[in-house]
């Protein structure tokens, strides 16, 4: 069995850089180091050419136009610009924003900031038990003050894919701008901004085997022409929408990663789904009471979020991540348990599914990616099964459940 000393299965958090992407970036650190805004010499021209090429590479992935792509520092900044930029620019039209309870903090915290400053009122749509919002919910929430809808393509924790095209139809019908945070879907799912009916789309390089620190916002230029108030001032770069010297190596990397993702999407998606399903099968063959979080079909290829009843997530991670069993390969995954968060809050995404906090505390998220192998999957399945069995022997809940005690009833009204 050949598995590395450290197995990385947390590809929703970030991804290792593809060697091809690194190769493409290197010349732009040392030889072609010019500032793309230097209009008067070849150092600037070659930098500008590289950026133009990257714009095309990114736009091609989503069926948009190259000039509609703005580069910035990541998806977080992109979400901030989309939401704050639209709300500020269109403030005479209204100030209501619609989003969902399971959006990434980059969207939720931005909305909260706008609410705090009394610049917007926000509706946070609840999701169903598999994490989906419906186009109907969006339609019902729209008022004559609504200026923006923001719903993500796919959720980073539970993998659930939202009905973006249906929501896009409603947005078009009602004349409301539609932003989507495509951080997890870009380069992994086929996306076409015109088929989907979106007007703004956010993405980043480091989830598609590109560099960290570089992302983009795609902004529709026609039908309608979307305007934004810049959030970064200072020279008017990126058509006045985001000032600041462009991160050329990062942009080259993002573009190259996007190109690879587009070319290899179908094959890679099939391969990742097969690995994910294999992992799921190997685990559930050996363990009972394992629950899938998120939608079983409308789901990101590499995402497997499982709750293991009666054991807690952090204690499981301790058995996998190299803290204990120091001689065995370390496995990197994550959990929605409160104990794994700095604030002791359980995953708000799992909470939003409305099935109780315990689901969050017992959850493990596996994020499979381009560089995971079947050997790794088999090995991880084995370790997970062994840890769960061990921890269930330690668990009073497992014992009580096996004795037929109704845990909900037993702990009803229990205070911590």
């Amino acid at each position, binding site marked *: 069995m050949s598995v590395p000393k450290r197995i990385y299965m947390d590809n929703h958090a970030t991804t290792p850089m593809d060697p091809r992407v690194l190769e493409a970036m290197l010349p732009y650190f040392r030889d072609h180091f010019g500032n793309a805004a230097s209009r008067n010499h070849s150092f600037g021209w070659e930098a500008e050419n590289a950026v133009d090429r990257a714009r095309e590479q990114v736009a091609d992935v989503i069926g948009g136009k190259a000039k509609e792509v703005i580069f910035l520092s990541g998806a977080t900044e992109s979400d901030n610009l989309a939401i704050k930029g639209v709300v500020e620019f269109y403030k005479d039209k209204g100030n209501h924003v619609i989003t969902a309870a399971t959006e990434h903090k980059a969207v939720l915290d931005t909305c909260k900031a706008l609410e705090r400053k009394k610049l917007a009122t926000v509706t946070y749509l609840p999701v169903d038990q598999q994490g989906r919002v419906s186009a109907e919910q969006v339609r019902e929430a729209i008022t004559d003050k609504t200026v923006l809808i923001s719903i993500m393509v796919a959720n980073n924790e539970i993998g659930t894919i939202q009905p973006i095209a249906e929501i896009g139809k409603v947005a078009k019908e009602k004349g409301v701008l539609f932003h989507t945070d495509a951080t997890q879907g870009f380069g992994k799912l086929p996306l076409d901004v015109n088929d989907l009916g979106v007007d703004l789309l956010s993405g980043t390089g480091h989830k598609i085997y590109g560099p960290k620190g570089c992302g983009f916002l795609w902004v529709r230029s026609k039908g309608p022409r979307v305007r934004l108030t810049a959030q970064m001032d200072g020279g008017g770069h990126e058509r006045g929408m985001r000032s600041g010297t462009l991160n050329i190596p990062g942009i080259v990397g993002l573009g190259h990663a996007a190109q690879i993702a587009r070319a290899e999407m179908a094959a890679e998606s099939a391969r990742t789904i097969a690995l994910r399903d294999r992992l799921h099968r190997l685990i559930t063959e050996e363990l009972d009471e394992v629950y899938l979080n998120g939608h079983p079909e409308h789901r990101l290829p590499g995402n497997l979020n499982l709750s293991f009843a009666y054991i*807690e997530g952090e204690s499981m991670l301790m058995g996998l991540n190299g803290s204990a069993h120091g001689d065995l390969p370390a496995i990197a995954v994550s959990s929605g348990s409160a104990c794994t968060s700095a604030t002791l809050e359980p995953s708000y995404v799992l909470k939003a599914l409305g099935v109780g906090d315990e689901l969050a505390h017992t959850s493990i998220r596996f994020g499979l990616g381009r560089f995971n192998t079947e050997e790794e999957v088999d090995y991880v399945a084995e370790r997970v099964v062994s840890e769960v069995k061990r921890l269930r022997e330690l*668990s009073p809940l497992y014992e009580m459940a096996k004795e037929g005690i109704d845990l909900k009833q037993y702990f009803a009204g229990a205070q911590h």
Partner: protein
Amino acid sequence: MAEYSPKVIDHYSNPRNVGSFAKDEDNVGTGIVGAPECGDVMKLQLKINDDGIVEDAKFKTFGCGSAIASSSYVTELVKGKSVDEVAAIKNSLIVEELSLPPVKIHCSVLAEDAIKAAVKDWKDRQAAKGEKPQGDPAAA
């Protein structure tokens, strides 16, 4: 997330006194504290002899590594002590022994609560036994 102290890792990898006493065992006090919704449930059992000394202890815990370590350590701590001594055990002792960081202190508090709950259970059972005449099967 900071790394764990070696003692926490040791208790996690080699937990002491895991399990449960047989249901018909006499002189056992059981404390179950916490809630699944909170991510922490500890079950602590103390076997206490007629002189009021803790002879044996067993635990089971649903919770993070620090919670498991806290309850495992408690089962070592209580053996040989009197009921009054164990009821007086403070969570700070556990925090110090396991070098628990601030964010994990609540695990030690829960362990202290588990001891008190087990002692209370044992005392309640003793009292119930005391009300029954000799030879009567005691109420469970």
